[in-house]
């Protein structure tokens, strides 16, 4: 069918017949894109396979329910897993309200002057600051300055600082994508800025905000450097009972195990990595499910 069109075009004499070349370039580019994609997927799969082969043998209830030990067959990740749950919950409680409120303020309420631009620029820059730097800030401000010691809350505050720029930027994008006409409709009914933002801007932007939040929390769950910097413990044989307790987390436990000489501990680390990935996967899946639900409702 396209061929008959081509011959028609050729007959006009106005166009050089370059359809073959253009098709070839298009095909080439398509293969290139596919190759790049599948290379990434393949490498990732390889990594997962390697980790699974090493770690799967250690993965059992004993592994999940034991404290770390210097004997590999007795060692487990109970304290690290619980620490990670504590940490991620605290981070979410701190960073989501602060991040979303900041984005909302910047886009809906503040005057768009020079200071506004400066703040925007700085937030974008902060997203690129290495995590170890946030660790140093956390150590100075939270651990020492506010004397919160090496506690869960110190870790959570530090991590919140680290992921705030990501949450703010993602939320701002989502809020910006809400059509102005929606806001005008609300204003014309005598709504205040807050009523407009709460009833229309936030619900419409929610799926986008959620995506940003999940990306940010996923980053936080895997970060090691800031936690090491603020001095999260590597050997914890008890469970934290409140935000002021000291703690360990999965990435710290993994880091500790891979830095030991014995081969068994390396395999334990692989096991812990599988658990970490599973936690991540469950988090993301939940988020995608919620986002899907809310998007359905908006349609």
């Amino acid at each position, binding site marked *: 069918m396209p061929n008959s069109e081509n011959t028609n075009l050729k007959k006009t004499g106005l166009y050089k017949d370059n359809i073959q070349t253009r098709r070839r370039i298009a095909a080439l580019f398509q293969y290139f894109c596919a190759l790049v994609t599948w290379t990434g997927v393949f490498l990732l799969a390889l990594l997962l396979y390697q980790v699974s082969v090493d770690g799967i043998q250690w993965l059992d209830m004993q592994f999940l329910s034991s404290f770390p030990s210097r004997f590999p067959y007795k060692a487990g990740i109970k304290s690290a897993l619980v620490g990670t749950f504590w940490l991620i919950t605290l981070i979410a409680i701190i960073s989501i309200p602060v991040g979303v409120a900041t984005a909302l303020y910047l886009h809906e309420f503040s005057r*768009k002057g020079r200071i506004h631009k400066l703040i925007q620029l700085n937030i974008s820059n902060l997203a690129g600051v290495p995590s170890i730097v946030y660790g140093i800030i956390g150590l100075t401000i939270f651990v020492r300055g506010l004397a919160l010691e090496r506690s869960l809350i110190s870790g959570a505050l530090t991590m919140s600082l680290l992921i705030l720029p990501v949450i703010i930027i993602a939320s701002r994008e989502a809020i910006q994508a809400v059509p102005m006409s929606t*806001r005008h*409709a609300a204003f*014309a*009914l005598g*709504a205040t800025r807050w009523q407009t933002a709460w009833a229309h801007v936030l619900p*419409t932007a929610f799926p986008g905000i959620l995506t940003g939040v999940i990306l940010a929390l996923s980053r936080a769950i895997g970060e090691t450097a800031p936690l090491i910097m603020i001095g999260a413990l590597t050997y914890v044989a008890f469970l934290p009972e409140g935000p002021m307790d000291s703690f360990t987390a999965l990435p710290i436990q993994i880091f500790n195990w891979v830095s030991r000489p014995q081969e068994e501990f390396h395999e334990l680390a692989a096991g812990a990595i599988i658990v970490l990935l599973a936690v991540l996967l469950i988090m993301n899946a939940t988020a995608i499910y919620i986002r899907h639900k809310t998007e359905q409702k908006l*349609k």
Partner: protein
Amino acid sequence: MNPQTTPEASDSENPISIPENSVLDLQKVSISYSGNPAVNGVSFPIAEHKITSIIGPSGCGKSTLLRSLNRMNDFVDGVTLDGQILYMGQDLYGNDIDPVALRRRIGMVFQKPNPFPKSIYKNVAWGPSINGYIGSMDELVEQSLVQAALWEEVKDRLHESALGLSGGQQQRLCIARALAMSPDILLMDEPCSALDPISTAHIEDLLFELKSNYTIVIVTHNMQQASRASDYTAFLELGNLIEFGTTRQIFTVPQQKRTEEYVTGRFG
């Protein structure tokens, strides 16, 4: 229908017919965007329970002027307004006016239908509910949709998304939403420009119905619409008010040559 009109010499170039009861009074209103003038010293009244149309070629400042009547221009950076707009004797831009409370009294329907991405019911109910309406919401929603001539078409799917309606239905929903607040004045910014002729006819019929209870200001590109639907007409060109009078006057015996040329379709 044809109120007493007296030519007034407030501006010697523009003889103005003054309606008896004006709810809004524009007095030498000038609006500029970051220093660029969009409206220059426009004065005319808006009559109560009448339809006033603002006509003129694209870019003449008619939308800008309309948006200044419920302070929607506040959301545009760099807009400044000189002169006065009196709403029942009070300066709309005075320090004691709360724009939020004002917009509750002066509603607006926009050029493109902009329903909220929510159900039909919630679209109508949201305005009254945030403003603390304590009557029966179901009744108010029904009554507003009936007024907007949409009830029969949507009564069986009130809780479905408003985005599933056709363009014309969406626009009538937006009108219902504005009416639910029982505003003193309803501003309409080319409400039919995105609609097909049948939907347009629906909305024009609606205007006649609404006139007995509401004061309506409508910006329109459509000469027939202005001449059919409105009682008073203001003709703007390049930000200047060329002529204001009863619609009959403007369309049959315009005082200004530019008005005559525009309404007879010789330019614009």
